[in-house]
């Protein structure tokens, strides 16, 4: 871990000012990913701005939805009564991720900004375009079992590791940010980006901006939803594939569908075409298969992760089945319904 300046502002304005245009400065809140990366010398910030004392730790009612302060911990969010009742998909997704200890520390804003778990990104002994632009992607043709199958580029095949973000994508959350140019709102779908030829950039946050809240719209899909996460052990592991599925039904007919995938791309992978395909169709396995095929039409395997395409296809079908049946996946009983 390198040496750095440490500052602890008490207001958002102070925090934004402290960040200024310094590319080596980083905000720190929960620290669960940043400190991890600093110990590997993947992140070497010149300055840490401790934002834990900013007044951003509230969950508030807003326009029929909820405004989640950027510093609300993952645990506080998952166990909040309003979230559990109105947005159980989000609660379930959070509880599918990490461990209780990490969820107690990790913040909402930090969850959005966590970096990929690509082995090569983490290992400074190997070249990585995300860590050191222009050095090449070691994952391509290497140990790529956990890597992306959608939206990859020749420069990067990393995945976004978050579970929470998959649910937020499905729920059409909005990310509110504050910066030198003032405040703005970023639709969740536009918050994270694909690697393209600039994989160092995970998000569309502009330099100098800070996340202040994540806003949930009124529709929470509390009736028909699931978060189904498939991984190499039954807990405390990143997703090989995960599915956030949410439906509104008229009888057995799908009125609205939301579908997002985790573990398969550089960002939470939401496919609105597949959602549109489901609209008006009966909630049957055939419909779900058609949607899954559509989502994975463009999927591309790497050397050892081809199984993820079929796994994702099956997970989508099962996730939609669980949502339609109103039997969301339990995050403690590991039997998959």
């Amino acid at each position, binding site marked *: *871990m*390198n*040496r*750095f*300046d*440490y*500052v*602890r*502002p*008490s207001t958002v304005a*102070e925090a934004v000012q*402290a960040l200024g245009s310094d590319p080596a400065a980083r905000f*720190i809140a*929960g*620290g*669960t990913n940043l*400190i*991890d990366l600093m*110990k590997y010398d993947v992140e070497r910030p*010149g300055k*840490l701005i*401790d934002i*834990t*004392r900013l007044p951003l730790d509230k969950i508030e009612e807003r326009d029929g939805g909820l405004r989640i302060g950027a510093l609300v911990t993952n*645990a506080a969010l998952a*166990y909040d009564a309003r979230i559990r009742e109105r947005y159980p998909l989000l609660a379930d997704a959070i509880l599918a991720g*990490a*461990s*209780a*200890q*990490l969820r*107690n*520390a990790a913040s909402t804003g930090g969850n959005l900004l966590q970096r990929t778990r690509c082995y090569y990104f983490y290992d400074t002994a190997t070249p990585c375009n995300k860590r050191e632009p222009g050095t090449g992607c070691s994952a391509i043709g290497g140990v790529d079992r956990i890597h992306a199958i959608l939206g990859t580029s020749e420069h990067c095949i990393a995945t976004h590791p978050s579970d929470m973000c998959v649910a937020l994508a499905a729920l059409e959350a909005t990310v509110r940010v504050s910066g030198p140019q003032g405040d703005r709102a970023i639709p969740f779908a536009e918050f994270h980006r694909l690697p393209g030829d600039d994989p160092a950039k995970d998000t569309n946050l502009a330099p100098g901006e800070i996340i202040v809240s994540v806003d949930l719209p009124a529709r929470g899909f509390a009736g028909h939803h699931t978060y189904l996460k498939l991984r190499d052990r*039954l*807990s*405390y592991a990143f997703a090989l594939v995960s599915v956030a599925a949410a439906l509104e039904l008229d009888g057995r007919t799908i009125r609205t569908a939301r579908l997002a995938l985790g573990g398969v791309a550089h960002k939470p992978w939401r496919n609105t075409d597949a959602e549109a395909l489901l609209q008006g169709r009966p909630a049957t396995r055939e419909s779900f298969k058609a949607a899954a095929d559509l989502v994975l039409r463009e999927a591309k395997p790497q050397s050892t992760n081809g199984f993820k395409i079929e796994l994702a296809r099956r997970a989508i079908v099962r996730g939609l089945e669980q949502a339609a049946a109103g039997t969301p996946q*339990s*995050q*403690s*009983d*590991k039997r998959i319904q």
Partner: protein
Amino acid sequence: MLIDSGSPGGVGTIGITLTINGERRELQVAPWTTLLDLLRERLDLTGTKKGCDHGQCGACTVLVNGTRINSCLTLAVMKDGAEITTVEGLAGLAHREGTNSLHPIQEAFVEHDAFQCGYCTPGQLCSSVGMMNEGHAKTRDEIREAMSGNICRCGAYTNIVDAIEDVMQQGGAR
């Protein structure tokens, strides 16, 4: 700004106050010192273990203001003002009057042989207390899931769950 200290390459330290196992301590720490390293290397509280240093094993679990977290992924300076309980303070948590007896979860771990080498144990114990404070886990399945952030390579998991269930049936932690 509350604090502005440290400089790249320098060894600036910052004054913080922590209450550790009931004892208030004024400390000067470098910003890059984790809570775990502070406890182990500066304060000789080696009960809290470093198993991975990356939040992937749970051996470093401590209670901060009653909440369980990984002390390896926490800079000490960020916890200025907090109350920290480590395994060394668990007994005190249960018996504020200062008897010598153990916390019920410590007794249950011994009784159920919920450890072998003992290296993950402090983290398991603090995590168990934190889990009981949270109050979400009730069934065996839920306990298993809630304790999955604490790896035990000796494989004492079933005994750990037995020990926790035992204490929960007695009325839980304090």
